[in-house]
């Protein structure tokens, strides 16, 4: 979430030959939001993790301050967020190419592919599907070296004017999930038969509501308590 918004905010720095105008419109819209807080409900459906829907409050402040506050445990995707943030801040490190238009959920979207120019970036490839008519991101697909690919779908409600989604669905790679060896020996096991979940992908659905935009959040809020 945090990193996605950071990506979007930093996109003005991207040197785009053909799609910069469309991206710039999106970035301009996003720049109207200096800070916000939002209630989130997170539903995770990930192999090897069992968790009931959980609630949290998310705080964001320009340009990259982000905080999740929850009583319970909330799982959010992490892949490629901080890397894409640093990556997009330097225009010379990537190239943006406008691609085909297509439809996602009945909406016409423009594909914009962001390709890193150097070899030492964590991000290998970033794809953005943009609804030009409303200047909104509908879908992203970000591939990193160590963490595979995260695909994110966006749905907008009454906060579309700020380009703030009401729903985000993340699809993540779970191939690398492994249990620590010390847990492998289960003294509770009754037989040698093993139950394995063979899925390689998991999803996290985040419903966002009760946005409070530009309320003047203080930097103190984002400081980590020791």
């Amino acid at each position, binding site marked *: 979430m945090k990193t996605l918004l950071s990506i979007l905010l930093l996109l003005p720095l991207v040197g785009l030959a053909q799609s910069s105008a469309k991206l710039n419109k999106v970035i301009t819209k996003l720049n109207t939001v200096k800070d916000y807080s939002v209630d989130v409900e997170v539903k995770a459906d990930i192999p090897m*993790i069992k*968790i009931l829907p*959980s609630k949290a409050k998310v705080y964001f402040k320009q340009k990259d301050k982000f905080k999740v506050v929850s*009583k319970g*445990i909330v799982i*959010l995707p*992490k892949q490629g967020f901080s890397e894409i943030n640093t990556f997009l801040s330097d225009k010379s490190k990537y190239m943006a190419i406008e691609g085909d238009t297509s439809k996602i959920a009945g909406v016409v979207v423009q594909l914009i592919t962001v390709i890193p120019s150097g070899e030492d970036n964590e991000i290998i490839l970033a794809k953005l599907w943009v609804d030009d008519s409303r200047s909104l991101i509908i879908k992203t697909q970000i591939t990193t070296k160590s*963490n595979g690919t995260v695909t994110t779908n966006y749905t907008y409600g009454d906060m579309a004017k700020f380009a703030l989604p009401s729903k985000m669905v993340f699809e993540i790679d779970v191939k690398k999930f492994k*249990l620590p060896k010390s847990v492998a020996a289960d003294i509770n096991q009754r037989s040698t038969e093993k*139950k394995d979940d063979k899925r390689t992908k998991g999803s996290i659905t985040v419903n966002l509501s009760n946005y409070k935009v530009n309320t003047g959040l203080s930097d103190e809020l984002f400081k980590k308590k020791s």
Partner: protein
Amino acid sequence: MLRKNTYNEFVKILSKPRSFLGIGALTLLILLIIFAMKADGKSIISFVTASFEQTLSFNGHILNGYLIAFIILQMLIVHVPLLVALVTGDLISGEAAMGTIRMLATKPISRTKIVLSKFIAGAIYTLILILWMGFLAVIVSQWIFGTGDLIVLNSDGLTILQEQDILWRFGAGFMVAYLALLTVSSLSICLSAFAENSIGPIVATMAIIILFTIIGTLDVSIFDTIKPYLFTTHMASWRSFFENPVDMGTIMESVLILVVHNILLVALAIWKFNRKDITS
């Protein structure tokens, strides 16, 4: 007479220094764990979530009292049986070694009631041990670390349980853990009926637990037939309360097997003690 002799047996247990040694050792172990978690609990959490944290971020108050309580229960499941056996393994054979069995067996109380009263007193001691453990693990940990959701690492992955859904699991888990420890108590008392010295039944109890635990953890299909009937297989059944959903069928099966073990062991002890010629 059963009630009176049970009271006697409990008085004897409380009069022995080793009974308090067990409680003291348990207290020290738990406080050590709490101290270690307070000092460096986050690295233990990272160990558990390491492979997931490449892709996911875990937000919230993870290092809370419930997690500490779970870790304590998990770590001590091997040690607490020894503390139980140290006291209960001595209940019959210790008296034989001391000669007091002679005095006891010439009183107007049947040998069956003598064994039953020792079993009940041992059960009460075991209950005190587990209640104390529960108090330190759950209550004291909450006081120091606060509350929150519980993240549990099972053999099939992570399970995250919501705060309001945890206490009853600990309650039920401790009850099943108590039943498991009661089985250890019954085993040691049963072995005590066959021995004439203090240390033999204690060592034998631990040896049996270790042997059965090893058989239970070996990933060899040849043992699959007997594993379900070993009481050590069911000693960790309390963990099943921390799955989602809770498999009550499996848990009840474990409870039944442990109850049957207890009945058989006590019956065997009564049979042996009734036949025994007391020559010491």
